[in-house]
């Protein structure tokens, strides 16, 4: 491998508002072989620690940026020797490769390079089944570059699962150090294939035999880091939102959505589902928003260089509030293709990962539209601010009982209700188009979604 060319592995951009990141922990060392999709480094951003994955199988040649260092997005942080050098035509030279590498890895448009690879890729290697594609996304496997072992090189379930399996159980050096400090046995983490420092820090303290000096200094230091991060996060949120107000001529629409039909069917479906599989109303609302965005494509995309550019897929940004304060916005890819149950799984995973600081770079892809949902204890309504360069943001308030007129207009009736709002970009759409997105949600909540819930419940 000494003759191979190396590629630069750059500090990735993990969200529209990120311009620098700090290396928290390297999970690999020079000489290690890494598989596509494997987590190699944990990066601290203003919002959270993010697990960063590699996009191609390679051998680590050199670590360029050490733990604790802060570098701008695009800076080479490691050198890799790819398994299939032709797939990454980046020659060894100075800084430019960083930009080239980021572009190549984030752009799905590398078919030419892939074709020059080992020859199992191309069309046969593509995952065409939506079920497998979802599975691949769930397991964070790049569905466009899989080795197919099925007939005609077709990708089968086992191929996706194999690609997702980590190569043995590993404990990072930092995790080992922390385990010793905190008197935790490695066996306590036996359920994990990869144990990082964060896992050890998150684990409840073991026996009370931790030295007081060590345990007292650490929390203080962590509190200070947390404070700095909070301040930095607030500043970044402010910057993004100021830019939005400055650049985007917003219009706002609001509509009450009657959830009585949807929730009735949801209740029936949940009755037959095991506890862990129960679906919350919020998942249904996300389904409604994503599918409505598919039906009103003028709201699904970005404002780039003076014109609207529609997105081929509905990639839903989901605003999650962190318990420590602030928000993070992971993306649910192809959200309009998900069933309510799949949406619930995706939501649960993102919420848990966001809270534990275990989001991955693949969870932070670019969204084509964003949803903010205040949750059950939130306000009635949220008047949103668009995340540039997107052109629309859907907001949901808390689900509450409200009074509605009866159909015949003679009386009133109480129904579970949510206030849905749309913030639209007047450069891209007008209120007429935006209204369609809101009314689409009501018809989805009254028709398609209850039908799917009935199918889940096993009824007809």
């Amino acid at each position, binding site marked *: 491998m000494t003759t191979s060319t190396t590629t630069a592995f750059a500090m990735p951009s993990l969200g529209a508002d990120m311009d620098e990141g700090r290396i928290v922990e390297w999970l690999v060392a020079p000489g290690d072989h890494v598989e596509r999709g494997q987590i190699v480094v944990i990066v601290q951003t203003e919002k959270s620690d993010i697990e960063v994955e590699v996009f191609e199988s390679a051998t680590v040649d050199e670590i360029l940026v050490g733990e604790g260092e802060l570098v701008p997005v695009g800076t080479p942080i490691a050198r890799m020797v790819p398994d299939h050098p032709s797939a990454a035509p980046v020659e060894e030279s100075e800084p430019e490769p960083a930009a080239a590498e980021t572009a190549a890895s984030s752009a799905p448009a590398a078919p030419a390079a892939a074709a020059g690879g080992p020859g199992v890729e191309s069309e046969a290697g593509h995952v065409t089944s939506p079920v497998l594609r979802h599975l691949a996304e769930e397991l964070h496997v790049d569905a466009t570059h899989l080795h197919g072992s099925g007939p005609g090189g077709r990708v089968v379930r086992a191929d996706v699962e194999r690609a997702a399996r980590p190569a043995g159980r590993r404990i990072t050096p930092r995790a080992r150090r922390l385990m010793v400090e905190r008197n935790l046995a490695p066996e306590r983490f036996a359920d994990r294939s990869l144990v990082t420092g964060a896992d050890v820090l*998150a684990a*409840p303290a073991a026996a009370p035999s931790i030295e007081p000096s060590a345990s007292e200094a650490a929390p203080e230091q962590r509190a200070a880091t947390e404070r700095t991060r909070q301040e930095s996060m607030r500043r970044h949120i402010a910057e993004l939102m100021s830019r939005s107000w400055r650049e985007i001529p917003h219009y706002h629409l609001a509509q009450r959505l009657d959830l009585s039909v949807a929730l009735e069917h949801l*209740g029936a479906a*949940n*009755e037959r589902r*095991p*506890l*862990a599989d*129960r679906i*919350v*109303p*919020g998942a249904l609302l996300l389904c409604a928003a994503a599918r409505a965005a598919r039906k009103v494509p003028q709201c699904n995309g970005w404002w780039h260089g003076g014109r609207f550019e529609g997105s081929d897929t509905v990639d839903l940004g989901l605003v999650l509030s962190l*318990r*420590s304060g602030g928000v993070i916005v992971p993306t649910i890819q192809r959200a309009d293709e998900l069933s309510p149950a799949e949406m619930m799984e995706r*939501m*649960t995973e993102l*919420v848990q990962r966001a809270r534990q600081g275990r989001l991955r770079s693949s969870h932070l892809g670019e969204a084509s539209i964003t949803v903010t949902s205040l*949750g*059950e*204890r939130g306000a009635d309504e949220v008047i949103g601010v668009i995340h540039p360069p997107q052109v629309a943001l859907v907001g949901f308030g808390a689900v509450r009982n409200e009074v509605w007129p009866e159909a015949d207009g003679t009386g009133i009736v109480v129904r579970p209700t949510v206030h849905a709002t749309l913030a639209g970009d007047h450069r891209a759409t007008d209120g007429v188009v935006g209204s369609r997105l809101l009314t689409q949600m009501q018809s989805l909540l009254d028709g398609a979604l209850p039908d799917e819930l009935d199918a889940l419940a096993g009824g007809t």
Partner: protein
Amino acid sequence: MDARETVFAAIRKVAPDVDTTTLPTDVDFREEAELDSMDFIGILTAVHEATGVEVPETDYPLITTVDDFAGYLTSHHAA
């Protein structure tokens, strides 16, 4: 294990930042600990794993406080 401690343990599992030693047992704990509906399902799942008791959605109103939840577990545990 004490039924109340079972509930506390489940809360801690889902929201490690909540100090259950100071959490009042006679108020709406979801409100008090700022737990959302996803957290709540996580808690129910943890309790189910620990006790085998699976709370149906229709019984959610019966387990708003830790005391009520503990009482619910005790009375349903016999089965």
